[in-house]
């Protein structure tokens, strides 16, 4: 096995550092939010993980298309890596959001369009892993995985819009773009902005680091599978 590249090692350390800094910024540096209080600090990591997870899902769909076009197994390894990390990040997003919602909305969960779409999306990608686990032939596993991620990237926005049109009104805060009636628009102080953008940066770095490590793991798994076939 090839030794870990020096750049990846550095990225590992960098990830730990930025995670520490982001935690400090979110918990101590950013001012206490006036209305929501301390619990608002969850928001920095909530957005950080949501941002990377959603980008990761879209990225995975792109990798899936790359696999379907080229049939090169490396795209499949990349795709699994992206989906796996994004699924975990998205789960963290949902849990953090729920922790925030309890004091802010007085409930852990509401059937709001974002929350519902998030739950369905998470279930979709859990189904993705169940699909992959059920297939032995690596070629077919890769093809089905690619098709399914592609469907997921189309289905998630449609689900979101369907829930929006079917139910109307949301209580989820809006960060970017205009808030509709009944929604709160988040206004951040400059210090909050620093914590916010740093959290986005930190989770992007962590994502890239995990992604790279996961790709190496995927390549190893691939090698083991081939060795096994050779022995048999």
């Amino acid at each position, binding site marked *: 096995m090839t030794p870990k590249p020096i750049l990846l090692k550095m990225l590992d350390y960098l990830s730990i550092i930025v995670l520490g800094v982001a935690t400090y910024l979110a918990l101590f540096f950013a001012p206490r939010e006036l209305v929501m209080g301390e619990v608002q600090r969850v928001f920095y990591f909530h957005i950080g993980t949501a941002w990377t997870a959603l980008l990761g899902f879209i990225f995975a769909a792109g990798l899936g298309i790359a696999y379907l076009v080229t049939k090169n197994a490396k795209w499949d390894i990349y795709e699994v890596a992206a989906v796996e990390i994004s699924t975990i990040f998205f789960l963290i997003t949902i849990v953090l959001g729920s922790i925030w919602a309890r004091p802010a909305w007085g409930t852990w969960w509401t059937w709001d369009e974002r929350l519902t779409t998030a739950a*369905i999306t998470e279930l*979709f990608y859990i189904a993705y892993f169940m*699909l992959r686990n059920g297939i032995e032939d690596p070629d077919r596993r890769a093809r089905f995985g690619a098709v399914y991620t592609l469907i997921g990237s189309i289905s998630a926005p*449609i689900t979101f819009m369907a829930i929006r049109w079917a139910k109307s009104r949301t209580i989820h805060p809006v960060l970017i773009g205009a808030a509709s009636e009944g929604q709160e628009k988040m206004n951040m102080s400059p210090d909050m902005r620093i914590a916010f953008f740093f959290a986005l940066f930190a989770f992007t770095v962590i994502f890239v680091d995990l992604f790279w490590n996961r790709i190496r793991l995927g390549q190893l798994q691939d090698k083991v599978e081939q060795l096994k076939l050779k022995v048999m």
Partner: protein
Amino acid sequence: MKPMSTTSHPSFIQATLAVVRKDLTAEFRSRELLSAMLVFSLLVIIIFNFALELNIKERQTVTAGVLWATFAFAGTLGLNRSMAMEKDRGCLDGLLLAPVDRAAIYFGKVISNLVFMFVVEAITLPLYALLYNEARIFQPGFLLVILLGSIGYTSVGTLLASMAVETRTRDVLLPILLFPVTIPVLLLAIRACNGILSGSAMDEIMPLLNTLIAYDVIFTAVAFMVFDNVVEE
């Protein structure tokens, strides 16, 4: 040996219809798929009766939900069986050997699954109306929503069933793969049906119907494009 290709290859539509004819002939001889779907949907409706205490007041609001949940469950049963039959009897391999566009096989399966779905709906709806004294479901608008919803459901369902059937856990897997993707169909169809039953204005229902049509078109197109990758050997 005589060359085989003196007759021209069947056209796309001929190939599609041949697959449909094969499925319908097989089904109307054995009737195993339809009878299972029908009995199952009746049982689901009976369970809902107990679960929701379907008295006259409740019925007004839950009719669409009960019907769609029934169709969705019966639909997975049918989709699973329809693909499993192809797989188990080696029929799929035969179909793939045929010198026709593979998309024709996909559309053929979609149409035959859709026919099964319609047959189940055509029997379940009057039975529901009879059992719960709910004649309002026989409105053109209501039936149109059921038509559009069924198209979306089977177009995705046929694609995912042809994937699920290749896995180790196929019977369990199809609903898990299918339901997250078909939530928009179920949601929009239930809302639209509810709107029609409660006599909402048409401009409230139209956006739902338009989204449903968009869903049907998008997912049929996607399935059409990727089906080759799913059945490739």
